[in-house]
């Protein structure tokens, strides 16, 4: 929603043809390195991986540096423990069959600090259908198919969703592809949610996932979506950016999430 207003502003400015963009040299302070812990437990997977890394200076063009030597334990509500083994590339792994309805928690001991997080694995919400409609295109969206997901929301609880998709085998993972919804506006309804801001070409094979997650995971991802991508600066979409609301204790960045998904594959004519 916020980005609509910002793009409306930009469109008006582009129209007046007087604005300009340029790359500038900006000197930024670098904060002390913080620990980043990220893990996604998927209902359909047989193993679970956790990545631990550190923050680096903003203008340093490098991939994240993994942190080795952490002690990680995964637990469920029933007292089961899976100590996680460190792989050669610095990620930590456990083999398990995730059980719907469990709350999983992690305890990570790394660089003399302990971090804890937990998340609930909720049942998948069935993706009833994937609809598509050909649009001739307008100034903002090029011509092509607009795709929507049809499903029914459970009116008795508050639900949180994410829509992910891949085109011809390629996962779409830009900041703009982070599509998140809570059921505030459609609680209990049968709803058709579009993949916004995108049109697809005839012949594309799309793999569409409707992901169901818990509240804290959604909070993290939606506060994350406020700060990734282009908007920035005092007149951008978010004036006072801050770090996403993580479910880790003790100030770790990143998050731990349990997710279940319902998937469909379609080929556009």
């Amino acid at each position, binding site marked *: 929603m916020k980005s609509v207003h910002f793009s409306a502003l930009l469109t008006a400015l582009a129209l007046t043809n007087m*604005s300009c963009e340029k790359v500038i040299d900006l000197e930024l302070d670098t904060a002390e390195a913080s620990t980043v812990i*990220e893990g996604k437990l998927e209902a359909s997977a047989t193993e679970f991986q956790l990545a631990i890394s550190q*923050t680096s200076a903003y203008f*340093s063009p490098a991939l994240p540096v993994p942190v080795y030597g952490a002690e990680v334990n995964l637990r469920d509500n029933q007292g089961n423990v899976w100590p996680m083994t460190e792989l050669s590339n610095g990620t930590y792994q456990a083999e398990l069959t995730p059980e719907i309805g469990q709350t999983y928690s992690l305890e990570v001991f790394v660089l003399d600090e302990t971090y804890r997080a937990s998340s609930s694995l909720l049942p998948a919400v069935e993706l009833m259908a994937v609809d598509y409609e050909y649009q001739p295109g307008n100034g903002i969206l090029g011509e092509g198919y607009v795709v929507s997901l049809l499903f029914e929301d459970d009116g008795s609880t508050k639900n949180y969703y994410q829509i992910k998709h891949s085109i011809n085998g390629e996962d779409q993972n830009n900041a703009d592809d982070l599509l998140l919804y809570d059921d505030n506006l459609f*609680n209990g*309804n049968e709803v*058709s949610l579009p993949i916004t801001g995108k049109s697809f070409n005839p012949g594309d094979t799309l793999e569409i996932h409707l992901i169901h997650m818990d509240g804290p995971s959604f909070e993290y991802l939606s506060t994350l979506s406020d700060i990734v991508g*282009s908007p920035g600066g*005092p007149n951008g979409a978010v004036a006072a950016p801050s770090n996403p609301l993580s479910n880790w204790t003790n100030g770790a960045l990143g998050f731990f999430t349990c997710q279940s998904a319902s998937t469909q594959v379609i080929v556009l004519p």
Partner: protein
Amino acid sequence: MDTFAAEITLSMRFSFFAGLLFLMGSSIAGAQESFTLSGQLRDADTGEDLPFAAIVAPDIEAVGTTSNVYGFYSITLPKGVHRLQFINMGYVTVEEAIDFSQDQRLDVEMSSNIEMLEEAVVASEKENSTVTSNEGSLTTIDMKDVKKITVFGGEPDIMKIVQFDPGVKPAGEGSSGFYVRGGGIDQNLILLDEAVVYNPSHLLGLFSVFNGDALKGANLYKGGMPAEFGGRASSVMDMRMKDGNSKHLTASGGLGILSGRLTLEGPLVKDKSSFIVSGRRTWTDLLLSAAGGDWSTSSLFFYDFNAKVNYRFNENNRLFASGYFGRDKFGFQDQFGLNWGNATGTLRWNHILNERLFSNTSLVLSNYDYEFGLGMGEDGIAVQSVIRDVNVKQDFSYYLNNDNTLKLGFNVIHHTLEPGNLDAGNNTGLSNREADQKYGFENAVYVQNQQQLTPKLNANYGLRVSHFSQVGSGTKYTFDNDGNLLTSEDFEAGERIADYLQWEPRLSLNYAVNEMSALKLGFNRSAQYMHLLTNATSSTPTDTWIMSSNNVRPQMTNQLALGLFNTLRSGTYEFSLEGYYKDMQNLIDYRNGADVLFNELIEGDLLSGNGEAYGIEFLAKKKRGRFSGQFGYTWSRSFRQIDGINNGDKYSARQDRIHDLNIVALFQLNERVSLSSNFVYYTGDAVTFPSGRYYVDGMLVPLYTARNAERMPDYHRLDFGLTIEGKENESYTSSWSIGIYNVYGRENAFSISFEPSDNDPLDTEAVQLSLFKYVPSITYNFAFK
């Protein structure tokens, strides 16, 4: 804080009554009979009331008065014949010898005839007006003076003019909102003929909603506001519309590249009743449809319409009805649209009860709404938000004697807020929602006195007592410290949900050190019950207003200002140096991760804290001669401290602009041609930039540590303007205004965003977006005499 306020008010009340007793005592002791002369001051050519003109008895030391905002004056002198001078800047002084042997009425017309001004002009200047007018921290703008200063768009825009004043900082390019002395953007009370205007800005802040042709002028109070004003914590911008020429019909207007305007005014009954009607519109949408293609079914325009009519029943009664209606519309085909607008209406009755008592009764309506839509019909959604105010106010001015002018009154405002209604088409799968409407009463009663304590010391002191109650029908929510809902309780219509009572003492002192210098002190304590929640700097119309409630306390400000004012060469040069300290409480901001849209429980996502601002303002003006202008410099700081933001540590407010420089220069080349230029420089806004980076889910994520610890690049630009008056004509004047905004094309940063580099996808670069360079404006202005 409450005991402090109570103490102040007790001492205020004590000194007020002590003052009254002293006066009464001295007038009894004097035992001389006095009589009162009162009446209306009007412009001889147009019939417009002349506010704040000086009426002086030159033979008696330190005796004088000023006409009120409606042009009414009252002066009481001892029995006998006395000389009186009626003085108003830009007008020929009128001298009368009056025999004060009974109470009399004298209406005076003053002429601004330019020929006569050339010679006697110096005498017509209110003698050292800066040093004699009481209020410090007050800037008066007369629309006649601003016509020559070029601003963006080539129109005399009062909101832009006000930003030349030190202590008033523009919110930024693309916004006509402003900050006064470190206060928030919602802390300015913007009044048009007593009606509150919630959003004074048109599209992207390029133009304000105020059409200069319909305005008489404005008073901007940055501090020491008299008790008659309240409702916003940092400033009062009191704008008045013209009443309309009551002598003959005239028209004026202008045509420019981006917009056009037309004003029609004249008598309905000569000297008794007049009207003024004024309209303005941009034609950017006509340009769009000419451009064709995708843009041809889009819209981008705004319009303003002002109308006022007045009728003088007899010399003691006058009725006014005025209104403003304006709208902005921005839409792209059927895909999305934004439209918003203000509408205000004022019905006012001026009644002169006797030669010393003037009454003003007003009924004011104010409506601000915005609507934003995506898609059309069954596939579309529209969100609408509305604020509606109904205000009843009563003011009395009592001219007790020539040393005391009392004002007292009250007002009652009923607020209705519809924070967000959603209208969703059937195909969207979304349900219609009507956010709960919220209702509140904002009431105040005030008493103030302007008193000449000694020949050199003038004081304006008063007390405003304000009260706010949120009333039903509505729901009262309580939250825990983390913003989770604890309880919710429903209330019936009219039942009280929350209420607040605030005491707001005001004081302003003026000590005339000598004929040319004055020391001024101002103190005000102000309460604010309506708050603007904003997540971005410029006042986008989608910002939300909320009212005080059990969760949201009123914003309070205490401000102290002290200044030295000087004039040279009988008013040709003016200097002032003023320092202020302001502390603010109950400032609100969003919690991290707050859900901004359609959030019934938004109050749980708000945090409150304190603010502090201080600074020194320097202003030098040359007011007459071929070359005139002003130089203003402010050094100031503005901080916030809110638990839950920045780990509870103090941080710079966005508007913590340490240096702010503004230079305006006007040069009268010859009779017909004048040149103007202005230069603006200010420190960049305090902003939060990343201090590190990491990856989540394959996406690059910036790391943020301290809030507002970094700076945007400094802002500076130079504008030029040229005004060429048309040939002299009996019935008609015309001029061409040509201007260039941002002459040397400085690319001032509107926003800085961080994007992946083209060369290396792992690398990020800072990309700056700047708005306006070398923007020309050409306007043809005309006026029938």
